[in-house]
């Protein structure tokens, strides 16, 4: 977390491709994610920021406004506000107003808890605000399994309130999991029903997501299913450019790549400001290794963005390590940095979900060490909103057990013990 004395100067290729330019970094992020609070009414099993409790060091209203002023000066035209649940900050609506009136457009992510008819009408009256409702299952069973009891109904009610208020084009944001990849058409139908746009993003093993990633991340054949679905329906579906690792399903030279930015933008074109003003390379990398600085103690956001040692390093030419010899490197650019880091894989090797299968080999190699999850704001004790990730099922050999009777204790005295009729 070092800030350099002066801004490093990088030689730029004249007329190079945009990807080449982006890899060397921009003067300001294209857009950034700003998590306003770690407090949340839900306790989603896969929360990327391990949210739950408010951090007492959370930026004050005035400090938040100062950040917005700086974003306006830097001409950052858009922020994605999230959390935690941002709308439970008492000053949320005030900050929303302040940002929009300072040329900083807002898209905020919410589970919908505060989007009552009155708020929905207010939002419908604003320009330049996007609302994104999180929904991780097209049915209550699949959604509530990871997001907690009642969360499906909360999200659908919010969508309905927005639609009734005349708010146009809300977004439904879905984290793609093993349990919901089979519901893509149903998600699209829900979006159509509420006049919303579907947004699909990738599950990362970040935050509490690390605890459930093995169970939730899509299987290889589901990745193919997702890629094919995106190719067929991609025109009207947003992805946050998060599936670039799937581009290697196309041809090696990058043909067949999904639309959008096919590279890791961490510290180059995007970053994260967390609730206490810490600046991380990306929203999925809340860990000391990716902490560039703090907006309060390191001279402001612009200084951190332009002069932090970490971001300077991320903008310097990277080695592609084990991926160097892969013909598909130009298609996927090695995949997601956070996904590699939190599964204990080297950053210059394959993505754990590499579609050419190199990730599985790397995961199976056994010599990886999972990093500690640094910042945990999970609630200390479970509440009634906590998801219970249990499903009713029967053991595979249930019928066999039934036929052969109960197991026989070593102390059984009956001379016929253990004999089946």
């Amino acid at each position, binding site marked *: 977390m070092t800030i350099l004395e002066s801004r490093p100067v*990088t030689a*730029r290729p*004249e*007329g*190079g491709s*945009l990807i080449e*330019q982006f890899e*060397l970094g*921009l*003067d*300001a992020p*294209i857009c950034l994610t700003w998590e306003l609070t770690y407090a949340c009414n839900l306790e989603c099993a896969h929360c990327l920021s391990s949210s739950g409790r408010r951090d007492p060091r959370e930026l004050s209203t005035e400090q938040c406004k100062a950040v917005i002023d700086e974003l306006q000066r830097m*001409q950052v*035209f*858009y922020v994605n506000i999230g959390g935690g649940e941002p709308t439970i900050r008492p000053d949320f609506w005030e900050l929303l107003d302040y940002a929009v009136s300072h*040329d900083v*457009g807002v898209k905020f992510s919410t589970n919908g808890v505060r989007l009552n008819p009155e708020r929905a009408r207010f939002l419908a009256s604003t320009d*330049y605000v996007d609302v994104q409702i999180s929904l991780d299952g097209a049915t209550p069973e699949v959604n509530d399994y990871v997001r907690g009891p009642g969360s499906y109904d909360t999200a659908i009610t919010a969508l309905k309130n927005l639609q009734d208020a005349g708010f146009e084009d809300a977004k439904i944001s879905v984290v793609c999991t093993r349990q919901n990849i089979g519901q893509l058409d149903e998600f699209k139908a829900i979006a159509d029903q509420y006049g919303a746009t579907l947004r699909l993003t990738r599950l990362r093993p970040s935050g509490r997501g690390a605890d459930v990633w093995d169970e939730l991340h899509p299987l290889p054949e589901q990745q193919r299913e997702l890629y094919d679905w995106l190719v067929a329906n991609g025109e009207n579906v947003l992805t946050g450019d998060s599936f670039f690792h799937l581009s290697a399903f196309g041809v090696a030279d990058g043909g067949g790549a999904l639309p959008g930015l096919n590279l890791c933008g961490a510290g180059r074109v995007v970053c994260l400001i967390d609730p206490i003003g810490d600046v991380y390379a990306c929203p999925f990398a809340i860990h000391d290794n990716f902490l560039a600085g703090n907006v309060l103690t390191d001279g402001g956001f612009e200084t951190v963005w332009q002069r932090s040692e970490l971001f300077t390093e991320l903008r310097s030419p990277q080695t592609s390590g084990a991926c160097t010899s892969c013909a598909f490197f130009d298609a996927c650019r090695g995949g997601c940095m956070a996904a590699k880091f939190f599964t204990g894989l080297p950053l210059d090797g394959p993505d754990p979900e590499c579609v050419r299968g190199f990730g599985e080999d790397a995961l199976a190699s056994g010599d990886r060490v999972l990093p500690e999850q640094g910042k945990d704001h999970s609630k200390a004790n479970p509440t009634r909103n906590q998801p219970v990730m249990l499903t009713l099922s029967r053991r595979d050999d249930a019928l066999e057990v039934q036929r052969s009777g109960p197991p026989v204790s070593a102390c059984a005295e009956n001379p016929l013990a253990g004999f089946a009729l």
Partner: protein
Amino acid sequence: MTETIEMLDEAWALSPAVALRPEPFGAMAYHFGNRKLTFLKRMQLVDVVRGLAECPDVRSTLQAADVPESQWPGYVAALHGLAATDMIRPRPAPAGATSEGAVA
């Protein structure tokens, strides 16, 4: 090619809804109305886009930005691309418009 020739004689300007943010390789253009984002990948193209409003037509803008005539078709194609998303707009020629004098 007729498109190229036509545009050279037309007056254009940056759309009032667009902000240009300088970048090390050129600029990022953001449209506050349709929220489209575009990157101008060359400094000279940024000069041209900024200069449109100050020159009577595209031809004189390209001349003022020292763009060699051989590259004009490429620049005009880029301007057409920007026009397609309303980044730049045709400017009605005002009666008695100031001529090249304004450029110098």
